[in-house]
């Protein structure tokens, strides 16, 4: 979680300094959902990643170094500079490069789950998506197909209440995304997405269920973006009381308090932070130093 938070803040800074091209969608504030979910997965389990995917990728084990290089558009990036922030991922740690079209990753995750079932590999895939995504037909079809075929996929909704500037209450008449699970005969849970332990527990149960052939689960994690939708969005459309209440409930601060309650010491936490900073310093330095992709390779990887 600390790595995610500091990675995002660092990226923001680098972006403002003009070192990162393209656009970025930061996930700070949503660390507990990404971390809790990925902790419940094995290395050879998979995740699919959203447009707001840095945190998800880091949680699954994509290195800060390879991701930073990707954001810089360098040849050493996890996608060789072809993907960028919107498509980060690393299959070697089970993170499918991100899909930036809202809703499009849900059927793909469902198909990955089909492959595990057919090949009997015991793997599970977690499909991350946002509250706004649950209004897309692609998502609906996937939920239904996963349910009728009992596929090993866990649908993990990062419900941060907003899709860009649009509040969830303006886009659905049900209060929770998980209220839609019943339409597919699938279990649905709404949980505190800022509590990594709650996320871990719920996702772990869903993963066990999936792995043992019990089929998919929808887990809706209530959380919040600490920033705007993307780098240039001041998010002034959000009501102050809502923002204040959520920002006060910082998942990292809260978990810190929990940990300091007899589990870890201040010194240990400090070490984590220092390690993270060192890791990020190294990642940035490596990314800056790395070569750009050779334009002569630009036609590689279109066909196999």
């Amino acid at each position, binding site marked *: 979680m600390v790595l995610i938070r500091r990675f995002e803040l660092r990226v923001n800074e680098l972006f403002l300094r003009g070192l990162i091209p393209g656009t970025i969608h930061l996930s700070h504030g949503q660390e507990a959902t990404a971390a809790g979910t990925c902790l419940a997965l094995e290395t050879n389990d998979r995740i699919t990643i959203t447009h707001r995917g840095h945190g998800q990728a880091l949680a699954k084990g994509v290195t800060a170094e390879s991701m930073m290089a990707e954001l810089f558009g360098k040849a050493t990036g996890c996608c060789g500079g072809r993907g960028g922030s919107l498509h980060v991922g690393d299959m070697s740690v089970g993170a*499918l490069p991100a899909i930036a*079209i809202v809703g499009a990753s849900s059927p793909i995750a469902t198909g990955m*789950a*089909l492959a595990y079932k057919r090949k009997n590999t015991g793997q599970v895939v977690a499909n991350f998506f946002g509250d706004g995504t649950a209004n897309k037909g692609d998502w609906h079809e996937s939920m239904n197909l996963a349910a009728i075929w009992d596929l090993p996929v866990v649908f993990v909704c990062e419900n941060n209440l907003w899709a860009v500037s649009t509040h969830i209450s303006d886009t659905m008449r049900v209060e929770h995304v998980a209220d839609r699970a019943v339409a597919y005969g699938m279990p649905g849970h709404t949980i505190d997405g800022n509590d990594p332990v709650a996320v871990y527990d719920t996702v772990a149960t869903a993963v066990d269920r999936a792995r043992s052939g019990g089929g998919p689960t929808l887990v809706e994690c209530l959380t919040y973006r600490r920033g705007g939708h993307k780098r240039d969005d001041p998010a002034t459309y959000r009501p102050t009381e809502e923002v204040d209440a959520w920002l006060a409930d910082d998942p990292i601060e809260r978990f810190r308090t929990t940990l300091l309650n007899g589990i870890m010491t201040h010194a240990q936490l400090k070490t984590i932070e220092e390690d993270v900073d060192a890791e990020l310093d190294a990642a940035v330095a490596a990314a800056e130093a790395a070569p750009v992709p050779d334009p002569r390779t630009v036609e590689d*990887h*279109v066909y196999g």
Partner: protein
Amino acid sequence: MDESRNLTIVQGLREALREEMLRDESVFVMGEDIGIGGSFLFTLGFLDEFGPERVMNTPISEVGFVGMGVGAAIEGMRPVIDFQYGDFLITAADQVIQQAAKLRYMSGGQVEVPLVFQLPTGASGRGAQHSNSLETVFFGVPGLEIVTPSSPYDAKGLFKSAVRSQNPVLFCVHKHLYGSRGRNLAHRDTSTGLVPDGEDYTIPFGVADIKRAGTDVTVVANLLMLHRSLKVASGLADEGISVEVIDPRTLVPFDLDSVIASVEKTGRLVLVDEGPRKGGWSAHVAAEVAEKGLMYLDAPIERVTSLDTPMPYAPGLEEAVVPSTDDIEAAIRRII
């Protein structure tokens, strides 16, 4: 060859899929109502032979099951997705254009998407929403391969190549050329043909086939239009006009070299394409020849295409839209 092996295209396809499924456990097929064979009976008998795990009847959820095909392919399966009418793939266009075709590239080669779509294409008397030329709709999308077989021999060999390809393949067969029971089969004389028994042959993508050799004019045509062109060519032969008819067989990759070599010989080019006039493979080939082979041309490049209208239902109107043998013949005569 064994004369009893005079097959229809759907028979060739069925053999190809069956042999591939026997050869490779990772090949499976899904689609709507394929348990009873699907719309063109492509999977007739497969449910009994292979069971519901490898012959998956889907709900009407094209985005869902096309996306599932992409996901399963990423994870090492080789899905074949059967469409009742290729037209319905348009409802899942994002999964084709933005996902299947791009994931390899945007991941820097980390994933691949070996996935075959079996797509009935073209007009067959069912009106505007069941008559799209899918090979036109998706022609310009980098990352896809597009196959348009016109004979059972080609269909079988190309289908095996499609299943073994590491790329997403749109396998487009004209609705009038399958020869499925209960369906109209056009040009039976040229659209059925001998297929060797028990031979595991494949036909590579990007290699055109000269279906009829000639010296006066080059005609490039595929699908139903190939058969119409062959008919015209044999008629004109009686008059001493020698027409070379080239079947590109795959549109992506396209064997431009064979076309240019033929034009170098004949000096004249007619492209016959059932898609509408605006765009499609025939516009692309005309443009390429106008750039790379202009010096060989003794006459304008003629294109014979459908009119730029949605497809009408009434048979007489459909005929007026789609290129007829008369249209093809007239185009040839215009430049000879």
